[in-house]
């Protein structure tokens, strides 16, 4: 046991549905532009779309139901509903093939990838990293994780997001360009996956701006929901 200069903050963690135990988060990866209609609305070309990833800090996770202050340095906060995959067993490179990838999954959750869209546009234009647009504090609200042991590995199901009751994103996870096994195998060729990793799999079309006072609710059929209020 290391002797630290000061106590480290407790590990970030997410609730597990039907359990008092929590899922400790190691890293958060996000797949970009993984639904055709969203790639188009972001100016991408889905026919040439390659799988790519960005990260959020593990302690950017926020619990379901959170009341979140508007983040600094933006006038355009945009929540993106995503299917999140919780990794229970690690591996890397050739150790994870598409065919065996699902064996590494502990469970699934509904999550928001909160984005400072104005900053993202500016950074993209500069051709530089856009961590500032994606990886800010409290940028990753996550609903309770449903263990795969209980719900299996969903391949179909409505994915939706509503702001103050008005539906803005409405699609189906079977519209993913790269499915969950492909994402896991692709990511593990770049970095070693370990238990505690969360992978957000991309958002469908219909992303929009939210403002102070908005209640944002999203869900994935068969998996769960996640809700936040912007203060």
């Amino acid at each position: 046991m290391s002797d630290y200069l000061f106590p480290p903050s407790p590990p970030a963690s997410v609730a597990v549905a039907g359990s008092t135990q929590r899922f400790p988060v190691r890293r958060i990866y996000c797949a970009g532009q993984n639904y055709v209609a969203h790639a188009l609305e972001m100016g991408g070309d889905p026919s040439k779309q390659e799988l790519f990833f960005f990260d959020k800090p593990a302690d950017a996770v926020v619990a379901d139901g959170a009341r979140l202050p508007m983040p600094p340095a933006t006038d355009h906060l945009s929540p993106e509903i995503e299917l999140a995959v919780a990794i229970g067993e690690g591996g890397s490179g050739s150790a994870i093939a598409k065919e065996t990838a699902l064996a590494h999954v502990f469970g699934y959750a509904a999550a928001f990838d909160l984005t400072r869209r104005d900053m993202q546009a500016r950074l993209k234009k500069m051709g530089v990293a856009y961590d500032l647009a994606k990886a800010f504090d409290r940028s990753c609200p996550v609903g309770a994780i449903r263990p795969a042991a209980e719900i299996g590995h969903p391949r179909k199901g409505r994915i939706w997001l509503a702001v103050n009751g008005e539906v803005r994103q409405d699609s189906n996870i079977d519209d993913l360009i790269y499915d969950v096994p492909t994402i896991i195998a692709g990511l593990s060729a770049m970095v070693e996956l370990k238990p505690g990793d969360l992978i957000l799999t991309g958002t469908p079309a219909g992303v929009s701006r939210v403002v102070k006072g908005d209640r944002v609710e999203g869900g994935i059929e068969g998996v769960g929901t996640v809700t936040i209020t912007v203060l």
Partner: protein
Amino acid sequence: MTEYVFAPRERPSVPVAGTDRRFPVRRVYCVGRNYAEHAREMGGDPAREPPFFFSKPADALVAGGGEAPFPPATNDVHHEVELVVALGKGGADIAVDQALAHVYGYAVGIDLTRRDLQAAAKKAGRPWETAKGFDASAPIGAIAPASRVGHPAKAAIRLKVNGAVRQSSDISRMIWSVAETLSHLSGLFRLEAGDLVFTGTPEGVGPVRRGDALEAGVEGIGEVKLRIV
């Protein structure tokens, strides 16, 4: 006491010079293009572009140096030596003249970069994480407490590969000083004790290969040695 479905991993930490105690790491931030000559060699214009930030996972650190594997999915890994700031105190919207009071100490780090992936990401307007935030991408030497070394504003910074000097500059040539960087960053994120900030690299970045021995140092702060395996 929180119960977990499996044991959380131990917090990444960095040795502190002159003590057995370790600095527990929360986040690793990096400043992009903070030396004019490096901004130019990367095709940027230091006069017109504000510095920007990216991150690495805390457990991408190779604390104390040693060995780092040549990473997968690349044919072009570059070394970037950097002065690293270790924060002992957190805060948001920190004023420039208060910023150094948040610093616990300083270390020497190497920002290893998959340059080919970075070039592709830049071209496509895509994020840099796979280029910058890969496993073992952040070798770092022991932290020297500011209580002992002060807050250096001028010091030689250099990196050698197999004994040949590849990067040689002075931290006084940073575009944004440590205090300015911390102040700016704290307007974008709430900084906390345990955060590390890599402050950018000077010119002379170049490729490393399996078997290469890297030695990086900042005068008066320390050094880090790394072998690519």
